[in-house]
């Protein structure tokens, strides 16, 4: 068991390191000079190379790439990711100032998305109305096909501007979270609902269900007590996809609702080639992915006894 755990942790650490290294290589290959972006483009011809060199020096951009890589990696291992080229803020301070609103948004949206997904899956397998089942089964693809920004703009128009129930912008207070979390939950619920609906339907036709019904279990009892647990397990395996959807959706949602957050920070940092910030975001994101997958790997055996047996014997 300990070996299993060590192996998984090592793999997670490798993923974070690989993401860091890849992002460095990619950023280094870009034709853009982060220092150029500190100056007005109209003044590029006036800014002497000496002036730029001094600033590049300050950020360590003038050293050979390999030296920069190891300098930065060494500092990063000690918790120092450097400072944003654009804002001057230390990377962790800048990320720290925006990450909590994103975490709150992502967690709440995830909860709502899971709720929506289970409702769709459960109802679709419970109902005897064929048209209703068909309708519900067509919902997951629909939620993914409607652009997030469209959902966001419609919700803001109706519930913030017309009805005035919720503030149209800002990060302060629970009310400001409602519309963003709904906007984000809808596309995120799609893949989960799709997977759950499929596995509910598959499980419902399994021999053990037939046995349970033959023994006199009601349709609902069987769904809740037998199918639910088995059908839910596969949903854990798409944790990575869900996280990806949450982060990608956050960029759009945070922009529409003028929220502070990691999504907008990333967008700005990429737009201005702010290398220290981009690398900080990559490390944070990779860590979240790695930890989430690690957690799934560790939880799964607890839920599925067959896996537990394999780990213990390995």
């Amino acid at each position, binding site marked *: 068991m300990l070996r299993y755990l060590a192996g998984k942790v090592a793999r997670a650490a490798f993923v974070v390191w690989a993401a860091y290294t890849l992002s460095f290589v990619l950023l280094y290959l870009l034709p853009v*000079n982060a220092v150029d972006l500190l100056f007005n*483009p*109209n003044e590029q011809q006036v800014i002497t190379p000496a002036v730029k060199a001094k*600033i590049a020096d300050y950020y360590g951009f003038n050293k050979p790439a390999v030296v920069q890589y190891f300098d930065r990696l060494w500092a990063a291992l000690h918790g120092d990711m450097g400072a944003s080229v*654009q804002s001057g803020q230390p990377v962790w301070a800048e990320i720290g100032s925006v990450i909590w609103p994103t975490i709150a948004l992502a967690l709440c949206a995830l909860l709502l998305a899971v709720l929506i997904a289970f409702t769709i899956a459960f109802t679709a397998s419970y109902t005897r109305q064929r048209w209703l089942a068909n309708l519900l089964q067509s919902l997951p693809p629909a939620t993914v096909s409607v652009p997030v920004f469209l959902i966001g*703009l419609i919700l803001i128009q109706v519930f913030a501007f017309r009805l*005035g129930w919720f503030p149209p912008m800002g990060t302060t207070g629970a009310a400001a979270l409602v519309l963003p979390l709904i906007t984000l939950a809808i596309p995120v619920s799609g893949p989960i609902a799709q997977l759950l609906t499929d596995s509910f339907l598959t499980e419902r036709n399994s021999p053990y269900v037939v046995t349970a019904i033959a023994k006199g279990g009601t349709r609902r009892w069987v769904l809740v007590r037998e199918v639910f647990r088995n059908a839910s397990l596969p949903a854990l395996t798409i944790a990575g996809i869900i996280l990806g959807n949450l982060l990608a959706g956050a960029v759009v949602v945070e922009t529409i609702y*003028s929220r502070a957050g990691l999504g907008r920070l990333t967008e700005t940092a990429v737009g201005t080639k702010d290398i220290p910030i981009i690398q900080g975001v990559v490390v944070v994101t990779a860590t979240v992915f790695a930890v989430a997958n690690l957690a799934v790997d560790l939880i799964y055996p607890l839920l599925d006894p067959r896996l537990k047996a394999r780990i213990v014997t390995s």
Partner: protein
Amino acid sequence: MDIKFRHRARLFALIGAAPLVFSGLAACTSNNNPATSAAAEAGGTAATGGTLRFGVLDAPQYLDPHEAETYPESIIADNITDKLTWQDPTTGKLYPWLATSWSYNAKLTQFTFHLRKGVTFSNGTPFNSSSVKANFDQDARGDAALGIPADPTHWTGYVSTDTPDPYTAVVNFSQPNAGFLTFTSFSGDNDPGFVAASTLAKSKTQRAENVANIIGTGPFVLKSFKYQQNVVLVRRKGYDWAPQPLQHSGNGGAAYLNEIDIETIPEATVRTGSLESGALDATLDVQPTDEAPLKAEGFQILAQTVAGQNIAFSLNADLFPTNDLAVRKAIQIGWDRNALLKGVLTNSYKVATSVIASKVPGYVDYANTALKYDPAQAKQLLDADGWKVGPNGIRVKDGKQLVVKFLGINNLVANEPAYELIQAQLKQIGISVQLSVLPIPDFEVQQAKAQTSWNGTAGNTSRDDPSVLWQSDSPLVGNGSYVEAGAPERQALINATQAIQNTLDPTQRNAATKAAQDLIFQYALVVPVYEPAQVIAANKDVHGIVFDAQSRNLFYNTYISK
């Protein structure tokens, strides 16, 4: 290409709103825009207190006034610092601010400022000639150890600042710098507003870490900064050293508003919707298409064009085929500027009628001369030069097609449609334009190799002074058109733009400015497109939003009537 001013828009200083405005003030700031007089009438008695909730597109990132880049950063810098002088946005005339008077030597290499007494920074330390010296030294030279870049554009030839006594500062240059005088009032990027010695001693990171580290003398003080969200400014108690023309005593000389809440709202429809639903009092960065509907709903549209070099294509005189004068001339006159008014621009903007905006002193109107739309003449010039119309309608000479590559930035909403209009019209006279309108970072990459790959690069530079021609177009400074050694007009252009820097005599300076504009059009080096504008929409209760000479906003006179 002032990315910085990306969203500038234009004006109409709602100055007369203050109750005790000097009558002279109205005279020196009034203009003929109806918005001004309407707002002034609505004025009556200024109400003290309240918070102005002001929407902007760009998230302020770094609040050091000297490195203010985007329009919101400039606005914040303007409201937390003061400058030596105030430039009237309409006449371009300078008025006392922190300098009560000033003089300069005949060569324009030495400028002496007599400073106002009793001015203090918000940390209580006095403002004096050492403050001027310390700020100017760091602006001009930068401080590599602190991570502060130099600003060589505005400080070309800076030597030193002497401080013969606490209230006299003498600024020395190695070459004539007539433009420096108005630069002391400048509110664009690299704002010369004063910060305290304690701020200057801090590194870029320290300045970024805590808004309390940014200390100015201005009518407002930074209260809080939530990145991507908002910046809150609070009234400076005891402030009474506003620019002379704006000075009021309605609140003991301090600003009327208690606080200004500058909210970042990236989505245009959300800015507009927030204003309509009352979540904002006013918003900057109004889309041209939103102006008319908002006005119809009873909102004020306040706008001012941005003074400086207009949005214009600088044509590359060092690259085929724009190294050919006939081609440049044809591009200059071969499309109809007035067509921009149909569909692309609103009344808040103007069609460009010279290299520089019509408000800049020394501006000359070329609408009916060098810039007169004349497709027949354009075709004739190309024909005479050997450019014959080819089978696909594109002209050909010596086996080469007349294809020009134009580069632009997509940061202003009107840019792309305006450039596409030029592209379509030039095609009709046989010039094929390959157009790339890019986001700023990608633009920068292309800009770095513009001399060898782009025939025209579009942008604007804000500065309400004819020296902007020297800054952008002198072959020795900006050299926007790549007029290199061997080009027949090079020496003439160097001399003509330097002449603007050599005199402050209005007659001579206007003559020099005209000569430089004439020369630029004679050689068709710059093709003006439109005068960019800053547009604000505000509800009826907001009064006294001032646009300064660079169309940034000062909220010292602003109040909310309720």
